[in-house]
């Protein structure tokens, strides 16, 4: 993330210094202020969804939904707690129904339940993010709305191709994520099975400081 972020900012700034240096700062401010606006809208949306969510928890609706989808989620996310699976199920249902505002706080809660305390994302967390970032919406309501307001003859024409494209991208994501998880595990195993032969102390030290600097 850090690398992508830095490259993006530096490249854009260099471009701006060439094209129009006086607008650079105002563009940065407009980015930050659009974040502020977004945050205020999100407070409102999340306030409602988190309230409804806590009601759903109270009446046991979460547990019911979890029981229905557990056979699927349990297989995808091996070794996760019931609570994590509950949030994952709710996040997926919200996404499927196109309620992005509800999906995000649920997704954050699911991630909190799945973390193992280290600074590295676990394989399950990554799988969850990949599924979320390939959009599993059944009905792209926003786009249909945009199309009808732009005067389309049949704004809902895109439903079927969107659905198929979503299935393709999500399936690709799941397969790739599972593959990467397997590869990572293999490498870890290899490292445990054949540990590096012990080098003399001075070499070990240089290696250590080398990795620290990196």
């Amino acid at each position, binding site marked *: *993330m850090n690398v992508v*972020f830095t490259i*993006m*900012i530096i*490249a*854009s*700034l260099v*471009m701006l210094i060439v*094209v129009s240096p006086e*607008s*650079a700062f105002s*563009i940065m401010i407009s*980015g*930050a202020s*659009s*974040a*502020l606006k977004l*945050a205020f809208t999100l*407070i409102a949306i*999340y*306030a409602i969804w*988190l*309230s*409804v969510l806590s009601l759903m928890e*109270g*009446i046991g*609706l979460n547990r019911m939904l979890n029981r229905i989808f557990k056979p699927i989620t349990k297989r995808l996310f091996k070794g996760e707690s019931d609570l994590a699976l509950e949030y994952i199920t709710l996040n997926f249902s919200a996404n499927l129904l196109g309620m992005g505002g509800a999906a995000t706080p649920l*997704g*954050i809660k699911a*991630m*909190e339940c799945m*973390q193992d305390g280290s600074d*590295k*994302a676990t394989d399950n*967390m*990554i799988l969850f*993010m*990949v599924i*979320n*970032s*390939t*959009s599993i919406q059944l009905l*792209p309501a*926003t*786009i249909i709305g*945009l199309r009808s307001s*732009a*005067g389309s003859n049949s*704004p809902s*024409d895109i439903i*079927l*191709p*969107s659905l*198929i*494209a979503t299935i*393709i*991208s999500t399936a690709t*994501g799941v397969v*790739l994520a599972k593959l990467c998880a397997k590869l*990572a595990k293999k490498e870890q195993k290899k490292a445990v099975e054949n540990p590096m032969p012990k080098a003399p102390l001075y070499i070990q030290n240089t290696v250590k400081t080398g990795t620290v600097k990196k």
Partner: protein
Amino acid sequence: MSKYILPAFIGIVIIWAFIKKVPVYDSFVKGSKESITLILSIFPYICAVLIAVELFSLSGLNSYLAKIMSPVLTFLGMPSELCEILIIRPLSGNGSLALLEGIYENYGVDSYIARCASVIVGASETVFYVGTVYFSTTKVKRLRYAIPISLVACYVGAVASCILCRFI
């Protein structure tokens, strides 16, 4: 039909909660409070990402990159006009909707290009936003292979969208 689902769902949950003697009012107070703490932890991430995205799209770097990338799209059998929207899509939701409206205006809503763009935007997500916000309250700093795979999956979906739009 779909406009009734949301209010009906929330209404049913509230009535159900009332019958089950779950405190409705207190739940709303609790939810609203939680919302503020949640935003406080998300906001720094959104802000940093949006500053970079705004710089990227307004500096002209975006359209410059789009020009470089367009042969790749032609090679994949996609209209090269979609380059800009493909680059912005994983970065900014609002940005890609604005570009989508531009495409509707320039090429006509029911044109092949506009339909492709609609399907691409409808069938993908703001990958970088999801990546930052979802991990924002955890200790995770290293996302490992999460973002590359999400991007690859989204772009596979985008290529598929263009093929699908030809037949459907």
